[in-house]
């Protein structure tokens, strides 16, 4: 595989997860359980969208076809997106959203911590910048997982159910293919086999504090690396891309 193609795809993966997760969190605006939490979810959403913009800008440069970050966000179809499957799932209740946020935050925290050593300067800079933001996100979602898990019978049951239902999407976080192989050889990408034990440790520690039971690894959803998604991604994109599809080139 060509280095350039691999790097382009790698940037899309990071950007797509950030963008779609940011889009999902934005749906909480004015719906948060408290005003402070509403503001927090909006802030986190904004961070994710900012991270997507940065890495899309670089992706467009790597691709070298004169496209912009907006072209990449608004003019690709569902089968050209590489975000984590978990990111596109509907928000559900607050526990569902926090469980999803926590499981992805733990991944991003350890992933970016390793990626700051990437031999690609721009990728390393993106990781260093994102890590600062993701650290706050993880502290936030981790605290909520503990608060709800170790809270009332009802909050515990809801958080446990959220984790149980999301578990089959956690295998997807660690899948790799020839893109990773190519980039690992050049010292650009992170070997996710090295991230998995770190992710396990943090997840286990928080679950213990939260009195939650870690589900058994069973059937895992897959297909993302081939841009195969759940039924939900197409709906997000139709919403998000509506304006650019209807009035191509529209600007603020």
């Amino acid at each position, binding site marked *: 595989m060509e280095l350039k193609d691999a790097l382009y795809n790698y940037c899309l993966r990071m950007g797509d997860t950030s963008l779609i997760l940011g889009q999902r969190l934005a749906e909480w605006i004015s719906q948060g359980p408290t005003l402070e939490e509403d503001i927090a979810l909006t802030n986190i959403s904004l*961070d994710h969208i900012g991270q997507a913009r940065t890495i899309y800008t670089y992706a467009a440069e790597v691709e070298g076809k004169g496209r912009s970050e907006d072209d990449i966000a608004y003019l690709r179809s569902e089968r050209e997106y590489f975000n984590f499957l978990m990111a596109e799932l509907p928000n559900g209740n607050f526990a569902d959203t926090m469980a999803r946020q926590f499981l992805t935050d733990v991944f991003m925290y350890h992933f970016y911590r390793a990626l700051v050593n990437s031999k690609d300067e721009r990728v390393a800079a993106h990781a260093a910048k994102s890590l600062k933001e993701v650290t706050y996100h993880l502290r936030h979602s981790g605290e909520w997982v503990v608060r709800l898990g170790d809270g009332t019978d009802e909050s515990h049951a809801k958080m446990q159910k959220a984790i149980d239902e999301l578990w089959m999407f956690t295998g997807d976080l660690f899948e790799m293919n020839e893109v990773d192989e190519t980039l690992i050889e050049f010292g650009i990408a992170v070997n996710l086999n090295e991230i998995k034990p770190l992710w396990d440790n943090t997840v286990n520690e928080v679950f213990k504090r939260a009195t939650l039971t870690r589900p058994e690894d069973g059937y895992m959803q897959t297909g993302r690396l081939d841009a195969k998604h759940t039924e939900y991604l197409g709906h997000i994109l139709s919403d998000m891309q509506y304006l650019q599809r209807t009035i191509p080139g529209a600007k603020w």
Partner: protein
Amino acid sequence: MQNGKKMETLVANEKQVWDWLDQIPDPEIPVISIVELGVVRKVELNKNEVTVSITPTYTGCPAMHIFEQDIIALLTEKGLRVNIRTTWSPPWTTDWLSDHALNKLRDYGIAPPVKGTADKGTLFSSGPKVVPCPKCLSNDTKVISQFGSTACKALYSCNSCKEPFEYFKCI
């Protein structure tokens, strides 16, 4: 001098450009300038063309566009051709805020970032650090939310004077 044509007078040096930029307030915290905030990283002057390098505080910071517009407007008015370059490395940190800027933040009612506190990169850090209330200076305060009205601020409240306040958080 060529063919008797008058050479362009250099109206600015880099120090002067920095001084001008220091007059541009942060759009969300107008008591400190974009230079004091540490957003302006570099100024390169070549005759009447200037390249200003800026770096975002947060990746999604909506003020970035305003920084750019304000810089272009001001320096164009001073007779310069302006290029803006965005840099990503090293990533912005609250450590770049000058002591003077920290005092101005406090006077404005925003608790400045507590220096040397290790809330960067560590998870579940032990024990809450002390963020003094900017209004009554009491150390008896509590965090309400790590996310406030802008990306760079957290929400606190003071147990002594009972006033809520914002904390410019460390990154």
